């Protein structure tokens, strides 16, 4: 049976299913016991699984993520809630040098199966230190898988995949897509039919979220939804836009991206992360290094510019990669 779920509830369902069956999975993070984590992915788990498997931690991200890595090395599968990606600064070494590299440095002797859930993004006026995306920063680390569902179906399937993966997986969710109360009414396009049975969504495959023939709009997380909105606008002008959801940054589906761009010959990459040294450059380079001649026009990037996120709504809205900008760029490119 399928129901329409939010991403947060869909992810929770997968985690719950796996935890019921596998003793090696436990959850830790700040306030996971009472609050169930930033998106409520462990909502109610405190009562259900007890404080041994749902561990409230001090505000010690280096300490508890390092601890999680050690538990993973010793046969557990920790699931960590890091709330906001802005906080990676205080624990980056564990991501960069420990969890991601131990398997390699030990030539496979040691496995580090752990899932790190992090919320990304802004758009709700939380200013420069609580609105960042930074997904390119974590995706630049070798030895970690980075996935980024943008709808409930993928949220559940990718959570199952993450929990069954013998590697360090960073599972990102844009705050605005999760469908949690404090971010307002869930976006329609994030809600999807979610089967009750468990299923996996493989990493490293893009999704074609909307078919189209004139132009390819590529996004991830929240920007997928901005692309979809833009595609609706463009349809009114008779422009048929294909929308690609990257879904997985590491591995990145370069074949899928290339095929999708080739189909229309035009590409716009949207990204709420900072423009430079990020996803947008990587995606464009991945296409043109195969064959620049598939492009009938110069590719365009609609990203957050290289500036800290301003607090005031007037300024923040102006710098975000919103649908109107995407649609404008698409119109210029197609005409």
């Amino acid at each position, binding site marked *: 049976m399928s129901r329409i779920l939010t991403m947060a509830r869909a992810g929770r369902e997968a985690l719950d299913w796996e935890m019921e069956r596998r003793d090696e999975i436990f959850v830790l993070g*700040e*306030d996971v*016991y*009472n*609050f169930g984590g930033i998106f409520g992915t462990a909502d109610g788990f405190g009562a259900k699984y007890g404080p041994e498997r749902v561990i*409230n*931690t*001090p*505000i*010690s991200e*280096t*300490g508890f993520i390092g601890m999680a890595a050690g538990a993973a090395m010793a046969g557990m599968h920790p699931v960590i809630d890091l709330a906001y990606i*802005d*906080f990676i*600064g*205080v624990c980056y070494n564990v991501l960069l040098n420990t969890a991601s590299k131990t398997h390699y440095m030990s030539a496979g002797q040691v496995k580090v199966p752990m899932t790190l859930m992090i919320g990304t993004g802004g*758009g*709700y*006026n*939380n*200013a*420069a*230190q*609580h609105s960042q995306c930074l997904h390119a920063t974590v995706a630049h680390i070798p030895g970690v898988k980075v996935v980024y569902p943008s709808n409930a179906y993928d949220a559940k399937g990718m959570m199952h995949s993450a929990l069954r993966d013998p590697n360090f997986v960073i599972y990102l969710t844009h705050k605005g897509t999760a469908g949690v*109360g*404090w*971010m*307002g*009414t869930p976006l329609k396009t994030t809600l999807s039919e979610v089967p009750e049975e468990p299923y996996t969504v493989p990493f490293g495959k893009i999704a074609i979220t909307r078919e189209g023939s004139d132009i390819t709009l590529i996004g991830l997380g929240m920007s997928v939804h901005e692309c979809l909105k833009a595609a609706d606008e463009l349809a009114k002008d008779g422009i048929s836009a294909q929308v690609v959801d990257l879904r997985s940054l590491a591995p990145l589906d370069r074949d899928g991206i290339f095929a999708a761009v080739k189909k229309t010959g035009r590409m716009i990459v949207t990204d709420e992360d900072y423009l430079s040294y990020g996803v947008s450059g990587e995606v464009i380079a991945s296409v043109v290094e195969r064959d620049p001649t598939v492009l009938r026009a110069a590719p365009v990037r609609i990203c957050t*510019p*290289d*500036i*800290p996120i*301003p*607090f*005031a*709504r*007037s*300024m*923040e*809205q*102006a*710098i975000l990669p919103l649908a109107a900008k995407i649609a404008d760029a698409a119109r210029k490119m197609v005409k």
Partner: protein
Amino acid sequence: MPLSPELRRNMYRQMVRSRAFDDAMIGLYWVGKTPIFAFANGPLPGELHCSNGAEPVGAGVCAALDADDMITADHRPHHVAIARGVDLNAMTAELLGKKTGLSQGKGGHMHIYDTRVNFASSGIIAEGMGPAAGMALARRLQKRPGVALTFLGDGAANQGAFHEVLNLVGVMKLPFIAVVQDNEWGVSTSKKESTAVARNSDRASAYGMAGEYVDSNDADDIYLAAERALARARSGGGGTILELRTARLAGHFMGDQQAYIPEQMKQIDPNPLYRAKLIREGVLSEAEAAAIDAAATAEVAEAMRLAQEAPYPDPSEAFDHVFAGADA
């Protein structure tokens, strides 16, 4: 300085100014956020961490400071900022994201900067530790006076930065005070659950520095303890961990129902207690106290009026201030 009536009246005044400010902000915060709550809605969007209950900390410590002293505060900065003398109009405007705000709308409530009174704050836990130590070091190198204080929560004392910076302060004997505000909670996690010792001030021995705990949430006691720590710092005696029992009456942030707080841990409002004490001890008459209360409410109302009338920044201003100098 002894606890003069003047000083105590002023501490009370700072406490009610801070409370008036927070109450006004809480009122405004809910505009546009009911019946459906979302951070992004209304004229005061984003997260909001109010200081209700912690006013004695700001008032007591800041009353003991000199103009030369420097402060870094955390995600809950209002009570410290206000007691330190941060421009109330500009601070109000900043929370509303207005052009007339301290940071012209770029900062919001966790990023309060007022260089006029050496005040800064930021939103990453324990982030203010290093900068405060650096401010203290700068003054030493510049041969200028000044003690640096960082205000942080009890939860923040479990961050690595706390340890690293206190060790540096200990080694360098910097004029530095870590004001640990013990409200017993870090979001929904109790101090007991998160902290291996009952008092962070006892951790001072790990850094060869002084530690003091004040259990009362009373501005007088806090003032006197701050004076002791400041005297130590000014005379070359090094740093102090000054831990102050305080309260967090309005929850972690707006929207926090505090359902996790058991009945027996409910916290007490320090402001009416201090008011009653000053009246009881003849420092204030009821009428004088009422006048201070009214003045604070009026001042905040005026700040709010000005802020609401002020313009929003132009979208293009987002691109200013990324860099200083020629690239600005």
